[in-house]
């Protein structure tokens, strides 16, 4: 096992989780390459070969639009997430590209204090290695459940 690679990927994944959980959403798009893809779907859609996503973006600009919509356009109650993240498998594809699979659970904490298990699933990542560090070329979030409580405002 390439330990440096493993740790590098885990570091990227951890920075991703903390950026979202700490409400630093503006930093979220910068974890992707310029034409990076982000897609959030369900295990059911994937198993049935259905291409539908709950969120789909194929550029950093579209990710920034998500963030600014959450900040300025959409109506939802104040809430935050806590990502639990584990079981990261890393596989090098070539000198510049790595594939990673990991598991997550997300708790949602509402402004009133209620905390609930909100989502669980897998991250299917394609990561680019550059001199400046690692970035996501693609992140596919595959949720275990097809059902989402009330709304999914903040990205997983």
């Amino acid at each position, binding site marked *: 096992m390439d330990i440096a690679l493993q740790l590098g990927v885990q570091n990227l994944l951890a920075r991703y989780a903390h950026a979202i959980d700490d409400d630093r959403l503006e930093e979220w798009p910068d974890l992707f390459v310029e034409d990076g893809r982000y897609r*959030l779907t*369900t295990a059911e859609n994937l198993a049935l070969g259905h291409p*539908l996503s709950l969120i789909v973006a194929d550029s950093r600009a579209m990710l920034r639009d998500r963030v600014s919509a959450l900040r300025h*356009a*959409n*109506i939802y109650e104040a809430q935050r997430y806590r990502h639990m993240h584990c079981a990261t498998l890393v596989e090098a594809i070539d000198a510049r590209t790595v594939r990673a699979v990991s598991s997550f659970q997300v708790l949602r904490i509402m402004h009133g204090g209620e905390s609930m298990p909100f989502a669980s699933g897998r991250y299917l990542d394609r990561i680019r290695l550059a001199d400046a560090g690692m970035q996501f070329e693609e992140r596919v979030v595959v949720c275990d459940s*097809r059902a*989402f409580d009330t*709304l999914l405002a903040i990205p997983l």
Partner: protein
Amino acid sequence: MSALPESRRWPAEGVTRVPYWVYQDEDVYRLEQERIFRGATWTFLGLEAELPQRGDWKTGFVGDMPVVVARDQEGALRAFENRCAHRGALLCLKSRGNSGEIACVYHNWTYDLCGNLKAVAFRRGIRGKGGMPEDAQPESQAPRKLRVEVLHGLIFGTLSDATPPVEQVLGEEVSARVRRVMKEPVRVLGGYSQMLQSNWKLYMENVKDTYHASLLHLFFAKFRINRLEQKGGVIVSPDGGSHVSYNMMRTDTGATEYESAGVRTARGGYRLEAPELLESVDEIGDGISLQILAVFPGFVLQQISNCLAVRQVIPKGTQRTELVWTCFGYASDDETMTARRLRQSNLVGPAGFISMEDGAATGFVQRGVAGAPDREAFIEMGGRAVASDESRVNETSVRGLWQVYRRHMGL
């Protein structure tokens, strides 16, 4: 028939008032199951495109009642209660499958895809011992069969013999608007569910409320997908239970009513860096960019630009509702069209730039009225009548919902 206590009387003003106990009362919920969902109404069960092959089946709900929808060996669509004649266990546990017959896992009683009980395991016992009496008639407790009708690829079912044909219930104008979207064979793109923390009727009111759309949803007003000054209208079916609201694209006059009224959704400061999200084509060719159609009690057909979907509204108790989304395109779509639909699906569903807010808004009402069962919602936008109208600054279709609701409920 169960009845409601004297205190549950509808306000004298009629359909312009809605008493808040109607979203809270357990007895009301039970009566709705009996008189509406298991009564003379049509429940949407799925798209014909979801069951293309003989032997295909899927499970679903008519109110609280679990059902199986199947394409039988002759190719006909069937629907029946998902309940074994024996002890009442679910017959189909999975959400979909394909098989020649259906066997209950509990005691292996088997059924054909029409819901007929075909075999009882060890009915005659083993080696002359055990088994059922000669004159036993377990068929008497067989799962109930639903009448099924398919309207332009949409499957509807009803338990009642008294339900008039679907097209008759919808009326000519609403039926024509179903055909407008379901104009050719469709292809399912996928689905998901949104669990709403509110009564099912609050969601149906939200769908029928043409007044709220551009006031709650910034995306509608800001990007002029749906503004109340755009040309459009609302069509209400003869019984009040079905409606269509629609508006035209490119009829925007550049009017500034929203801006001068200081409406939140039209304020400056928000723009898209990647406007391709909203890139759309007039694929039906009539200039209608948005059409929302609902059928009582729980069906919605949606065209928002090129994002097409059906939604099933399934009650899960007085304060909880499952909203099942299925997005689709046409079988004839090319890759560009499919990509466009998938991109626009960012607008809908639990994470939809538009639809996420409806999930929140219905919950705000449910929580807001918690201490006020005897107070009433005030619904007089556009007057007090139930009728089609050119203006969507109007709550006529919401009143229509309550008109048909009261008739079914005897309230």
